[in-house]
């Protein structure tokens, strides 16, 4: 597989043209295989610590660890992408990631479900909003592209 730098960047940005790039990490390994004299393949690394909108110090980031990079704990939640629960709200907060939203629901006894608005949401003020919900939701909407929801197992 051969890709230009531009195609690689598009792939990283999530704009995958015609299924050429299925997986960003595969692309990285493939590229390096083509150049035997290049650096050794990356084996394991810690995700970068970034502020996710907060103005933080390096010491803060050391203490906090990586923000917004953890996956939702799927042993605790049945997760569905593109699902939006309507109603049943028990709280609404800004959360730096969907995993933080899930973790907040996990630690709240009133919360049985959550809905999180990703940064793709068309309304800027809703992006990164986390709604904690109970089972009294009035409806759910599938194919809601900018949402991810979870239900406690």
């Amino acid at each position, binding site marked *: 597989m051969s890709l230009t730098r531009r195609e690689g960047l598009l792939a990283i940005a999530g704009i995958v043209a015609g299924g050429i790039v299925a997986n960003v990490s595969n692309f990285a390994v493939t590229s390096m295989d083509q150049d035997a004299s290049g650096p050794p393949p990356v084996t394991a690394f810690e995700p970068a610590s970034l502020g*996710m*909108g*907060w*103005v*933080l*110090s390096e010491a*803060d980031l050391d*203490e*906090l660890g990586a*923000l917004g990079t953890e996956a939702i704990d799927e042993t605790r939640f049945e997760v569905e992408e593109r699902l939006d629960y309507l109603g049943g709200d028990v*709280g609404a*907060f*800004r*959360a*730096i990631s969907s995993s*933080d*939203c899930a*973790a*907040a629901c996990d630690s*709240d006894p009133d919360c049985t479900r959550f809905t999180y608005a990703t*940064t793709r949401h068309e309304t*800027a*003020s809703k*992006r*990164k909003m*986390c709604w*904690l919900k109970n089972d009294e939701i009035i409806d759910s909407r599938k194919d809601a592209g900018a949402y991810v929801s979870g239900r406690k197992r």
Partner: protein
Amino acid sequence: MAQISSLSALDASKYDILIVGSGPAGCSLADRLSAKGVSCLIIETGLAEYNQDIQTAYTAMDTRGHFGDQHWAQHWIRAFGGTSMVWGGWCAPLDEQDFEAWPITLSDLRPYYDVAADILKLDRVINSYEAAYLPGFRFKPFRTVYGAMRFGEEYQSYLTQTGPVDVLLGVTVSDLQPNEGRDRVSGLSLHQSDGTRREITLREGQRLVLAAGGMGNAQLLLNPAPGTETGVGNETDQVGRYLMEHPHYINTAALVGRRRLMPPEPPANFGDYVPNILADRAMHAKTGKLSVAMELVEREINPVDRVERYLSDKYDGDFVTYNINIRSEMPASADNRVTLAPSRDPAGLPLLKTMCMAGSDTVRPIFDILEELGKTVLTRNEGRVFIHNDTLVSNPSGGGHTMGTTAMGDDARISVVNRDCRVHRYSNLYVAGSSVFTTGGSANPTLTIIALATRLADHLTGAA
């Protein structure tokens, strides 16, 4: 007389000053003039009560750019009392640094800010109070009034009582006629809602003040009288330019940290307020010289945010959390402007088209100042700042503040009125209202509108 029953009953020659518009600018001007025995006529398109049909017919507008389709029209109220009918009641004087591009300074306006506070029945402390905050920043709250003054109610006596102020309702000024030398307004056309028209000739010594709102003032000066090609005062193509709002970015940042970040309390006579942080002079210069008001809204800790939980533990109960609402200044840009649309209102005045964009030169200083605030509290280990990027780069809301369309300046090539609010070249034509703002600062404009109108009254009576 008081309210004049109809256009045919009008004897315009008996008034010293004709005022077009009855909002905070027009009524405050009449208030101050009449107190000195000067006779005034207020001409208002609307009626004593708000009428939706009049509103729609006279303010329909083609809008492009930010703030939304109905935004400017909804804040150009055609009724006795003008846009005070929808005023939220927030007051703050502009800062000294806000006047850098103006031909006048804060000290020129300071006495009139106190007159404005008196008119609004507020304590004058609202014009002088501010307190230190973090290095680089100041605490300067907005005075808020729930149930803000409706000038139509406050000045009801102009309709009902005989005095030096008469009011002509339901009548629209449809054009201003220049004399041959274009150095005075010789006459104006009036249109009554039943279709009646009258031409009025301005006599020697009589003066005309446009107080028709940020849109209305521009509309009257953009519209060429029949037989002319250029509107009165628009000889240098400056009318309608520099249209500004205060872009609002609500809940776009957060400040969390030690309790010493709690803003101070203004003195009791200040009254109800909204806590607000502004840059000091040096920080203002460093971050792009635009005023950025940061309202602090106290809230509970966000339990979903790991950073807030971490800081709450770190500061061990010595902890406060605020959302930040931004109300900011747009640079005065000649390309943000009001122009005439190809359709007309019932009086025959061309309706307006607006183009107004809050661009990167508006938003970048907000990022800069929030970063500076963040660095300041971080360096002092007093707290942290969160910036919600996507809200800050989205379509802002506005305050309904229509500013800059007949800008004040010494140079007629880049402004419409001079430091006395007199239209360049014209000896008998003046403008009152936020359309004369050279720049907008971040303070709500009504207090400054009233201050400028009462200063104009003193100028017209030779007292300033």
